[in-house]
């Protein structure tokens, strides 16, 4: 696709969607959202980018194979899940901490967030990898 309108719009759409994906992923701990949804939104934006600019610019945007994202994400989620076992707590037990940011601001940090980021990476890796692979077959 070589539409100028689409290309110009993408410059705005891609960063905004990625930002929205991060927002969804982070607010997912207590509200609707989470790593899975965030991953889907992010992969939609990456797939749109690929459709607009073609396979070569996509390779520049994501220089590693999406498979590696899956592996890294799974490993992160796995390690966070297993970690409590070392302290004789059940699998997947979450640790929480209020981090002080200064200026009277605190952030409620939970270790489950790392699990969720792992899920996010897996979802991006799987869906982007599949879309990429299929479109390469079509473009051949």
């Amino acid at each position: 696709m070589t539409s100028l309108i689409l290309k110009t719009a993408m410059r705005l759409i891609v960063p905004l969607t990625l930002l929205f994906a991060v927002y969804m992923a982070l607010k997912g701990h207590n509200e609707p959202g989470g790593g899975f949804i965030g991953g889907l939104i992010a992969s939609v934006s990456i797939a749109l980018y690929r459709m607009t600019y073609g396979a070569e610019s996509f390779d520049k945007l994501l220089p590693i194979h999406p498979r590696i994202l899956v592996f890294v994400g799974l490993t992160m989620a796995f390690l966070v899940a297993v970690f409590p076992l070392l302290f004789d707590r059940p699998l997947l037990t979450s640790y929480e901490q209020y981090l002080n940011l200064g200026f009277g601001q605190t952030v409620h940090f939970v270790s489950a967030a790392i699990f969720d980021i792992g899920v996010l990476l897996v979802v991006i890796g799987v869906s982007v990898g599949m879309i990429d692979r299929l479109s390469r077959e079509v473009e051949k």
Partner: protein
Amino acid sequence: MSGSINNFIILFCVIPLAAGLLSVPLVGRSFPSRVIGTLSFASTFLLAVYLLIQGYADNTIYVSYMGSWTAPFGISVVFDNLSGLLLATASAVALGSYIHSYSTNASHIERGYFHPLIQLLMFGVNLSFLTGDIFNLFVSFEIMLMASYALLTIGASKKQMSQAYKYVMLNLLASTIFVIAAGMAYGMLGTLNMADMALIVKTKLASGEGLPVGFTALAVMFLLVFALKGAFFPLWFWLPDTYYTCPISIAGLFGGMLTKVGVYAVVRTFPLIFTQSVADIASVDVNPTRTTILWIIAVAAAFTMFLGVLGAVSQHEVRRILSIHVISQVGYMVFGLAIMTGWALAGCIFYMIQHMVVKCSLFLCCGIMEKHAGSDDLDKLGGLLKRDTLLGVLFFVAAMSLVGLPPLSGFFGKMVIIQEGWNNGLWWLSIIGLATGALTLLSMLKIWSYGYWNPEPKKYPQAAKPENVKSSSRSGYIGIAMLVVLALFLGFGANPVYKFADRAGEQLVSPDAYIMAVLPKERIKLVNPELAAKLYDGIGHDRMSEPLDEEPMIISASYNKEVHP
């Protein structure tokens, strides 16, 4: 002491998952992946045996609450005797067929993510044996199915694809019904935790309120789903073709294990929840759902046993005979379920265990037979006893265990089930069971006489040299021999194994121990104070003298206390 063990039962899922993750970057390098895989299966086997013995000695059920969210809200993972026996056997079967696969897998199969997939398959299988939650059971079925879809189509030949398509479609249908049924169960009982469901059903039966409307229909829906996975009559049609096409070590693993997961799901959920016995409730004579479901299961058992073995007798290819045999053997387990006394369930569990081991070793033998003759058609086989005596011995022991010749393992399974059926008014099923046993012998002798006893067929000269086959499949013999030794142990050591199985059967028919192990005391007190008083009476006064909580912490959505003061 058991507190420290409790949280580690999830290792049965963690170890295969870790091994699967580790072998992803090692794809294409077989040696390190094989080491990782073998260690993973061996360690889960040893862990299962250790926990089983420890749990039997202490008479405890190990429970772990995922993420520290207690039952009935979080997902609980439960290790009792039934789980332990099946986990140990599943790991052993996986180990045997995995070692066998060193010598039979083509390199393109190993490159096609064979090692990670088989670990993920075991992750799903182990999780379904452990989980104490219906929805989590669904999830673990899905994990197992995902891996099995990929393993079935590994190598991607045209024949495999068309068979796998059927398998995928049927399982998608079954999964959809499963989710719908789980939703209905949640609507009726307000919970999906198995122990909590059991407790609520028990309370509803004892209070005279009776079961919710449509409870029998719900049970039938669950039965349908599990019967499709377990290949009961009339839902077995997908099975013979599926196991016919994939690589032999995968076929062995699937033939030994996957249908048994469906049977396991029935063994776990039905005596506990849907067909709960009312023997210890004085005010109620009969659980109407139990009567209906047991009839359905009994009829299914008759057809599954008999039609399965007839199908096997009529086939002329080793793989087809073996895979249709799976159905007939499942029939015996279903027979044990139809009786549903503690001792019959023990027989059913024992039969499941021995069948997993024996069936898998027969499939693996078939793999080496194919290497000799280049085909599994009985016409093209022959003279194998002379060509490969070791294989002949292994096959004979495994086949006779399957048939149930007295000192071997199949005998003890069948004997208990048939005898118990006879004593409980299901004499007609016992007769069918005996007839099926005879026909099983016939079909096994068919493979034996065509494949091993007959001279080599002149029309189809066997191209492979016996020495080449033998030297190229050393690990194949090791894998089969391990399983055959285990089968012999199950036969000659049936007594200790039956002790575990008997305890498992008791735990299933009188679920009080299960309920007490999984649910916190407050929950039992809230739902059924009389039962709580009864359960905690014998334990000690300090626990009883604790005051009832003023405001119970744990409230169910649908279980309203005002209705049952």
